[in-house]
């Protein structure tokens, strides 16, 4: 602190170094706080985008497998298509599934995604579940489709999971 009354010495002291005024300190603190808030929000934004991408990936793959199951006939893996083939018309009968073919479904995995189970719920009958994987995952999603299984109305549920 300058306590001298000598004007020449006071002038010499003031001409060196940095002098902070109250408003400059407040402005500087606010600027730093603003930058901190911006950095935190940016990090949250990035995390939210990463989470959305992962959720979308799981949703997309699960829906694709469920849609393939009720629209195709895939002898390599009946999980990807267990529809009845109309030999006379030489075409697949969409939404009409064979329970016997579905029971032969094999495990399916693709780029960090796998199908954990398939279940068939017919009206008035116990739910039939086919487990396809023993892997444990915290991020799973199920998609329900309505179809005829062996000429009976049923809800088919596919449970897809992220391979962690």
């Amino acid at each position, binding site marked *: 602190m300058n306590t001298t009354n000598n004007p020449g010495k006071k002038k010499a002291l003031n001409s060196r170094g940095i002098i902070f005024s109250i408003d400059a300190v407040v402005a500087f603190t606010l600027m730093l706080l603003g930058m901190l808030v*911006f950095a935190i929000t940016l990090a949250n934004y990035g995390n939210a*985008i990463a989470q959305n991408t992962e959720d*979308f990936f799981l*949703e997309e793959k699960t*829906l694709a497998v469920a849609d393939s199951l009720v629209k195709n006939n895939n002898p390599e893996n009946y999980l990807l298509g267990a529809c009845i083939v109309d030999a006379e018309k030489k075409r697949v009968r969409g939404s009409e599934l064979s329970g016997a073919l579905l029971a032969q479904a094999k495990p399916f995995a693709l780029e960090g995604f796998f199908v954990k189970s398939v279940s068939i719920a017919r009206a008035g009958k116990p739910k039939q579940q086919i487990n396809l994987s023993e892997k444990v995952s915290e991020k799973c999603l199920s998609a329900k489709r*309505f179809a005829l299984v062996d000429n009976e109305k049923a809800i088919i549920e596919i449970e897809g999971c992220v391979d962690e």
Partner: protein
Amino acid sequence: MNNADGERSERGFVFSLEAVVALLLFGMLLLTTAQPKPVSIKELLILQQENDLLKVWSAHYPSEGEIIADTRLLFGGTAEVKVDGKVVAGAQGNGKGKAISSEGIIIDDLLQEKKFLVTVYFD
């Protein structure tokens, strides 16, 4: 800008350092208000499920009781089914949110065309 004599031109304007900092901060704070919207293809699944109902009903023409039971089984109480404009299965609490509809013409047991409209309400 400086002219040929080295003097500052009267045109244009120059931001002070404080103004530049304030503008940058303002821009950064504006950016913080935007948040990414979650992307979902739930609408696609609902549309596929509606089409499932219409496909199964076209294979086996349903009675009114079956229409109600099938709709409840798949969508709970959030779907409405109209056959030729008449409400067969009604939705509960359909005044809010979004809706997706699918329409199909199904031939009944008497070979008459029936127009089915399935509407699912969701948030």
